[in-house]
């Protein structure tokens, strides 16, 4: 049968997709994954290979964050990585924890944690005043 396949003769049907959170989360994991490939891998290479933690000083950090470019880079990384990672954790926990009430509770806590972390760290980075350290 496979041999007979030609693309024009295939009937394509359209339908209304009903969104649900799982579908959104699935797509988000993949989209953010692509973003993270550049941001996270880049970050690791720059911070941990080209520079190493052994030579890290607060002055170095200050120098980098003096530029808004780096600030935005890191903030973006933050915004993608934390929701991605926590949603990944949620996937894993939901595999093993089956009590719906517990799952709901955990999900609330995780959501709270994402929001708190993202806000806190964003403020931290955005308001970081490099001049203090130079």
């Amino acid at each position, binding site marked *: 049968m496979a041999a007979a396949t030609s693309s024009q003769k295939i009937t394509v049907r359209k339908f209304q997709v009903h969104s649900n959170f799982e579908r959104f989360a699935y797509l988000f994991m*993949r989209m953010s*994954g*692509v973003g*993270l*490939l550049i941001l*996270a*891998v880049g970050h*690791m*290479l720059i911070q*941990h*290979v080209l520079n*190493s*933690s*052994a030579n*890290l*000083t*607060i002055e170095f*950090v*200050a120098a980098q*964050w003096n530029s808004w470019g780096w600030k935005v880079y*890191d903030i973006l990384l*933050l915004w993608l*990585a*934390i929701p991605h*990672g*926590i949603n*990944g*954790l949620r996937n*894993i926990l939901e*595999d*093993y924890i*089956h009590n719906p009430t517990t799952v709901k509770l955990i999900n609330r806590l995780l959501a709270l944690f994402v929001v708190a*972390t993202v806000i*806190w*760290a964003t*403020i*931290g*980075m955005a*308001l*970081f*005043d490099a001049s*203090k*350290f130079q």
Partner: protein
Amino acid sequence: MSSLILTIRESLRYRGRSGHVSWMAHRVSGIAILTFLVIHVWDTANAHFWPQAYAWSVAFFKYPLVAVGELVIMAAVLYHAFNGIRITILDFKPEWWMHQQRSATIVWAIFLVLFIPIAIYMFSGIVGHCSELAAHGSTCWQIPPFSDFAKYAN
């Protein structure tokens, strides 16, 4: 809980092929990165909110043992990233199904090609650091004393 233990045990016992191994590696690396990332993010935020604490952690990250951890995270990110892309591609291109075995191998190959030089480079850094420490009469295996923190906090 029993399901957790059973699942982990059977995941290890099941003789799956490359996809199964990749899945385990992806999961473990994801958790590893997340653990590190959460610490790292809160810590970095301290640069603004609590610079003394941040100064301590900068010092903390200099310990060679911690640097080994850094190497592990590096491995995790590299593998997780490329395997994540592989999963994404296979999910979005069902018709490439037949490449699944090979794709898993390719991801490992890419990972090793990138990681080995990086590891050598980073490891030599650690060794260098160790010999520096040795010159000062301290040892490489030193565990960072938490009491230091009080010092920085002032």
